[in-house]
């Protein structure tokens, strides 16, 4: 294929422009999404104060009341439970993989964790319904009814299993891969010289990890957790399937709750018949997006110096 130099140059320029267009498209997409949702949510934002939307207690679309508080509180509960469960497990696993595991074990466990990231969220939901929900309904629930009467956040009269706890457990497993893979990379990025210096001073491996490696890796580890939070906030189907979806702020982990993503997913089918409903749901999607973007950008900029240098 012979072309003159001029033709090749023109081809180069055209290709460059075309690639610039796709790059601009991909880069601008996140702004376009935020903008699109904002424009669609504007009718509601114009007619109601933002404060009322955020802290309103009642959700009665047919009467024009769109209080999102129960859903925001539900999201916070489920995410908090997920992180409380996932945090210790993930950090310990990351330390094991980065510091203790022999190469052979690592090369088996890491692909398994990657596999976990690939499982569709509906399948997590099915597993939640098959395993987690019955376990809470038959074992943990009755145990709490009998023994945890006076403990705040754990007391309950009855639990059907579909609850904050079920959502939290399923979500915790879903954020495992994010937190583990990022924290492991961060731990491995700590220079070997610093470990060796501590070991040479007579520290045990545990002391070295605790006082040198973790301390050095702290911003990166925080970034990993914050990334996990932002992943958990937006997860929809699995939580929708196990959290019970009762539009009331939960008082105990055994109560049902109704996180924001579930609200959007469950109600979108019927929006056309009620005025402002569509606006309210896209407004909730916008709120969710803002939460997620906030955590994501925080993870990648404020805590993420180490993360960026060594991973991206």
């Amino acid at each position, binding site marked *: 294929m012979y072309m003159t130099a001029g033709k090749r*140059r023109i*081809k180069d320029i055209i*290709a*460059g422009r*075309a*690639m610039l267009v*796709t*790059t601009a*498209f*991909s880069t601008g*997409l*996140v702004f376009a*999404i935020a903008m699109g949702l904002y424009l*669609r949510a504007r009718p509601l934002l114009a007619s109601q104060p933002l404060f009322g939307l955020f802290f309103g207690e009642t959700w009665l679309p047919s009467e024009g009341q769109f209080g999102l508080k129960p859903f925001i509180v539900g999201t916070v509960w489920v995410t908090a439970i997920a992180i409380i469960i996932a945090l*210790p*497990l*993930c950090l*310990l*696993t990351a330390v*094991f993989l980065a*510091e*203790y595991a022999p190469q052979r074990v690592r090369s088996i466990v890491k692909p*398994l*964790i990657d*596999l*976990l990231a*690939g*499982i*569709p*969220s*509906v*399948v997590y*939901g*099915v*597993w939640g319904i*098959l395993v987690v929900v019955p376990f809470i309904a038959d074992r943990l629930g009755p145990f709490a009814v009998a023994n945890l009467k006076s403990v705040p956040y754990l007391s309950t009269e009855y639990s059907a299993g579909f609850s904050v706890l079920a959502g939290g457990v399923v979500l915790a*497993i879903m954020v*495992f891969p994010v937190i*583990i893979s990022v924290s492991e990379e961060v731990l491995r990025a700590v220079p070997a010289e610093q470990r060796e210096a501590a070991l040479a001073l007579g520290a*045990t491996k*545990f*002391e070295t*990890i605790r006082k040198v490696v973790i301390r050095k890796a702290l911003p990166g580890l925080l970034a990993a957790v914050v990334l996990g939070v932002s992943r958990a906030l*937006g997860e*929809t189907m699995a939580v929708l*399937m196990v959290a019970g979806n009762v539009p009331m702020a939960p008082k105990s982990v055994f109560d049902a709750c109704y996180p924001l*993503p579930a609200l*959007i*997913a469950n109600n*979108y089918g019927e929006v056309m018949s009620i005025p402002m409903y569509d606006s309210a749901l*896209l407004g909730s*999607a916008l709120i*969710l*997006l803002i939460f*997620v*973007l906030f955590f994501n950008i925080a993870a*990648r*900029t404020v805590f993420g110096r180490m993360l*960026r240098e060594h991973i*991206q």
Partner: protein
Amino acid sequence: MKRRISEYIFIGLTTAATVIVAGCLIAILAAVAIKGLPALKWSMITQSPTGGYYLGGGGGIANAIVGSLYLGLGATALALVISLPTCLYLRVYLKKGRCASWIRLSLDVLWGVPSIVFGAFGFTIMVLLGLRASLLAGIITVALFELPIMIRAMDEVLTMVPSELEEAAYALGATRFETGARVVLRQALPGLVTGILLAFGRGIGDAASVLFTAGFTDNIPCSLLEPAATLPLAIFFHLGTPFEEVHQRAYASALILTILVLLASTLARVFATRFSKHTWR
């Protein structure tokens, strides 16, 4: 002595945590396999739902399997058309400048956007274009959802291609486009396939983005403008019925979906190892 003991306790804790994490994966796969296998029948895969299917009548989920494959293939192709030039532009034209790092940040942030938000945005576009819930609207939405996944994976692969190769091409008088397309992309090919397969796996498994955009139907779609059933939604709707027999089918469908997704990610791994044999870091 005390320090010795705390060392052992710590090793024990980290090992236990790892076992629990890996155990979760095995528990999930085992539960889906145990519940799904007995319910899996040949007719599940080969037939579409017949009358009364959701009450426990005959038929299968061929509509959802084919719908998901159409949707996944279409969306992956569309995402590829956008991500390949983007990655090439980042690698060959922008290199490691400030602009590139801003673009990468925005793509990373896009990667974090929840699929339900993509779904809501896709619905907004759909209304804007005057489309109904259809295969086309689903393909567009899922393509947007796959975009950051594919770009991130491919970008990582392209940055690993040694720049000496590129310089050799320039020294021979190749233009940037020729270098990018014939040297960098060719060298990274297996790695690019990994990115494509990963994105396909994520796209085919996602439910929230197709919930409002692809619709649902008992038929296999014949055109882009018809609604299409998808496996994740089929599972979700099956579980929504009160009948145990229909639930059984949800478990079988979950098994089919899991196998499809695991197949894609295993293939992706195979290509990834092939890629790492071809490059040196």
